[in-house]
């Protein structure tokens, strides 16, 4: 695969910035357009002019409250969750040197949902804030298992992916068991597919710190994290404590994926596909650039998928997780096949 590899020696700052930017401005512009579109489209069929008016004129009118209080938090939550999942996927793929790694294929999402459903069954009235700690506990548990597996020897990429998928199946089956036993399937079907329907500003406030802190950490530590792509001995010879860097990466995956699942349910395929696309884009070499592309690309995918879900089933809606799954599964197939071809 031809990549626009960064030169090994430092070049002039301006030239580097040009390469680094690549398709980024276009994607960022698209994201802004998508967010505005998401704020202007919805079940109530508000005319575009009034929606735009509501978005930019803070007059306390019903239109304004709808756009600012309901549609915008949904779009913003999609942005944050999309960024979390894409970066988590990127880190998981780098950490395990496995192109099929993602919070979903490694069972991290399923672990978080199992913990949330379990909490809901035992302590029914905890709501979204109660979901956050349990989501982390579940994500961390699965993260620990996959961590152990990936360290237990040079497990082949395919072997690790299969182990993750098996773990995911197991956890999903346990979720099914809980739902059947507690008689709440019907109520949770949408949430379990992954949905931002219930988005509001409090949920945004829950996930925002994680996105910001973890995102900044990834960007700052990108040089160290990037060495995980090399094998352990090379990393060590470069004077890096790879163990510590790997632990940081794993912790970031758990925090990013756990907080995303806590507010939006287990949305799949974003974390799998976006890093691949980021890597294939011009200027997609190096972990920092890939992370930046994921921070824009993940939100772009999720906001568009949510828009699509609302348009396709109008005036009802498809949960965004179903849209990403239906879009993402064929892409996954393509990636699997292409990865094989390389």
């Amino acid at each position, binding site marked *: 695969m031809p990549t626009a590899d960064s030169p090994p020696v430092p070049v002039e700052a301006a030239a580097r910035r040009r390469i680094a930017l690549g398709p980024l401005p276009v994607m960022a512009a698209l994201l802004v357009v998508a967010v505005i579109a998401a704020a202007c489209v*919805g*079940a109530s069929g508000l005319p575009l002019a009034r929606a735009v008016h509501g978005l930019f004129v803070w007059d306390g009118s019903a239109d304004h*409250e709808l756009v600012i209080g309901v549609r915008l938090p949904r779009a913003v939550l999609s942005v944050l969750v999309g960024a979390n999942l894409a970066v988590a996927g990127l880190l998981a793929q780098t950490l395990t040197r496995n192109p099929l790694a993602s919070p979903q294929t490694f069972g991290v999402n399923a672990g978080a949902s199992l913990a949330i459903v379990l909490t809901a069954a035992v302590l029914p*009235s905890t709501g979204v804030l109660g979901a956050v700690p349990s989501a982390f506990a579940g994500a961390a548990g699965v993260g620990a298992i996959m961590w152990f597996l990936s360290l237990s020897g040079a497990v082949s990429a395919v072997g690790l992916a299969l182990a993750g998928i098996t773990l995911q199946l197991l956890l999903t089956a346990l979720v099914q068991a809980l739902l*059947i036993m507690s008689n709440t399937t019907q109520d949770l*079907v*949408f949430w379990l597919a992954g949905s931002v329907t219930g988005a509001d500003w*409090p949920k945004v406030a829950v996930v925002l710190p994680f996105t910001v802190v973890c995102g900044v950490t990834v960007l700052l530590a990108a040089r160290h994290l990037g060495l995980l792509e090399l094998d352990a001995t090379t990393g060590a010879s470069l004077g890096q404590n790879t163990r510590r860097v790997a632990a940081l990466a794993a912790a970031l995956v758990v925090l990013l994926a756990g907080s995303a699942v806590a507010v939006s349910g287990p949305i799949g395929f974003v974390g799998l596909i976006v890093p691949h696309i980021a890597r294939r884009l011009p200027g997609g070499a190096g972990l920092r650039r890939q992370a930046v592309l994921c921070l824009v690309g993940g939100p772009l995918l999720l906001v568009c998928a949510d828009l699509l879900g609302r348009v396709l089933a109008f005036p*009802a809606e498809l949960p965004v997780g179903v849209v990403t799954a239906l879009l993402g599964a064929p892409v996954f197939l393509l990636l699997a096949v292409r990865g094989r071809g390389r």
Partner: protein
Amino acid sequence: MRRRRTGRHLRPWHALLGALALLLTAPMLAACSGGGSATDAPPPAGAHAVRHLLGTTEIGGKPRRVVALEYSFVQALDALGVSPVGIADDNAPDRVTQLLGKKIDYTSVGTRLEPNLELVSSLRPDLIIADSTRHAKIYKQLSAIAPTIVLNSWEGSYQDIKDAVVTIADALGDRAAGERVVQRHEKVMAGLAARIPKGERRTFMLVVSTPDSMTLHTSSSFTGSVFRTLGLTPAVTSDSPQESGAGLERVAAVNPGVLLVAVDGSGTAYDQWKDTPTWKGIAAVRDGQVHVVDRNQFSRFRGLRTAEVIAQTVLENVYRADG
């Protein structure tokens, strides 16, 4: 490991064949003896045919030992003066008490989803009433226990439920009683409807609040069709009884004049939304016409008595009229 030769597989192969043969023939013989002779008893003298959703069933005499596999059938039986011997009550006896407004003696036969057929059979029923959505698959087995009729409760409209009462009465050997019960009920409903002020123009909607969204009950749902009977207008008109996964904006767009919110507990979407400006902008909220109602009565039970309870609740809450 890899130095094995295929030739050495010959002897274990006999063991394999033996085991497979044993595994396949033994159950086959047993199955033929078990499945082959499974035929229903011949219909007793004086049997009458009752038509239902999965065919016609011959029922003899006046069945009194009845097993009901869905809540609405229990209400229908109670209205007809029969107390069921077995109920698929999801292991929630309180719900049956709430359903009938009184405590009755019965045996639980497990969940509505997978009723325990051993227990059903041990009750020696002479009639089983099953639901078309959930129990079509076990209709044959139920019929082997006792004459079984299959009706639409899970997705039934108000009319389906009324028809079901007549069919159940027919199965109990007294169709006229069913018609009388329905007529009496219709008179009660007409009386309740008459107390609703003329010229009501607001729209009515029941929603079930789930953890992150709401399920809207449309004009073809049970509650929706009860509203229509009372001369009220359901806020959403649709052929499909429910619209799931509705967000706040969807509820605001429907903008019902009277909103009944069914909740099971706290921590649902209703708690998250009720303080937002958009929720407060809904017509029903502005007029103080949001009423939190019991999810069992409004969404799970579906019976004649439930219809009356719904009408009463609307009268009391919306029109401040005593029941």
